[in-house]
């Protein structure tokens, strides 16, 4: 969802790939992992990546060799180094080869994200990555966001209410909306982002025309809501957190909705359905078809 950026992370330690994937996927980046330099080259020959995050110390082919290859074969690709032991020389060499930035290991999600965002900004400025047009948000929507910001600007600790209101306006909180809010409230984008990612109420992905919320409270669990959830995924052919291709439905799982008397419960938009069964799920979907 994030401007269609494709990222490749190269590291010989699976755990690093996984954690980078976890952090960046949550933001909607399209990200893949490669476990060695060779693996990376193989992947890059088949796909185009906008950004490569790579380790330096790897067996077989080290990071610098990979970067050299990249500079020759894929000069458009942005490079960021992830490394635990940067020596003066390697960094210098890497900088000469034209890397954008480097992230020292161990890193926090916020740092990784910050660096990634800056790298993309950099690529954008050079015209390598086209900025996604913001036409999907009409000016009136942006005005509304600005009004909310203005209203709360002077109130301390107002970032959460502002984000809540803006999510109501836009439907979700894509990076440029977050940036607009950060700027308006005089906060760092990383701070705003850290709040958005912490609270489950916020979503960085757009939702379908009909958002289906499935309650995962204990009462619903005991009454086997899982069977209905599986049916829902199967019928819509999407996973939790995704939107159907026709943008009609999205599925979300939520914490206890406090309607345990009706368990198991799903909520479509604002309508609550109690005592759902896999069979009933199909009927409910019909209603919205």
């Amino acid at each position, binding site marked *: 969802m994030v401007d269609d950026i494709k990222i490749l992370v190269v590291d010989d330690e699976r755990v690093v790939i996984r954690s980078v994937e976890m952090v960046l996927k949550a933001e909607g980046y399209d990200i893949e992992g490669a476990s060695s330099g060779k693996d990376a080259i193989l992947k890059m020959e088949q796909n185009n990546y906008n950004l490569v995050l790579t380790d330096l110390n790897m067996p077989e082919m080290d990071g610098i060799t990979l970067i050299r290859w990249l500079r020759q074969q894929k000069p458009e690709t942005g490079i960021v180094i992830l490394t635990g032991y940067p020596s003066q020389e390697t960094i210098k060499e890497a900088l000469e080869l034209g890397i954008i930035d480097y992230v020292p290991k161990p890193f926090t999600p916020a740092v990784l994200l910050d660096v990634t965002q800056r790298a993309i900004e950099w690529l954008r400025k050079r015209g390598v990555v086209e900025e996604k047009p913001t036409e999907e948000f009409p000016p009136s929507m942006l005005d509304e966001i600005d009004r909310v910001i203005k209203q709360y600007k002077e109130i301390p600790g107002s970032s959460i209410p502002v984000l809540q209101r803006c999510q109501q306006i836009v439907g979700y909180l894509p990076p440029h909306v977050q940036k607009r809010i950060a700027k308006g409230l005089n906060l760092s984008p990383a701070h705003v982002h850290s709040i958005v990612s912490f609270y489950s109420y916020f979503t960085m992905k757009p939702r379908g025309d009909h958002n289906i919320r499935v309650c995962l409270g204990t009462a619903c669990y005991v009454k086997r809501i899982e069977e209905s959830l599986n049916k829902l995924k199967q019928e819509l052919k999407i996973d939790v957190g995704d939107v159907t291709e026709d943008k009609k439905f999205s599925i979300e799982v939520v914490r206890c909705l*406090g*309607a345990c*008397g009706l368990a198991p*419960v799903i909520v479509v938009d604002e309508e609550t359905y*109690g005592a759902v069964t896999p069979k009933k799920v199909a009927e409910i979907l019909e209603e919205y078809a």
Partner: protein
Amino acid sequence: MAKLTIADLKKIKEKQHATFTLREGGYRAKVTVHMGTCGIAAGARNIMTTLMDEISRANVEDVITTTSGCAGFCAREPMATVEIVNKAPVKYGNLTSDKISEIFREHVMGGNPVEKYALVVGSETTY
């Protein structure tokens, strides 16, 4: 609204008691529809609308309807309580539009509780 004083609290209390006890408020019957999240999800809004329709159709003015929060008996939502002047209140459960219409005709208008839908009669005591 003017600021309340302690004396006002007492006045409001007395005035409300008058309406609460139907008789003095000039009402013959009061129907309370329980509208918490559970009740609404189970269809309490629908019950309320049907009830209002029935009242306007019957063109009666001595019946009041009111909403209230969760009655606690979630298993039987949607629920409503019917109070007729000088009679103990009756709680109804598992309501539908048809059922509330019948209750309106039989109990509210006719004065006979509809046994088959009634859960319990009487009011809860508080401690």
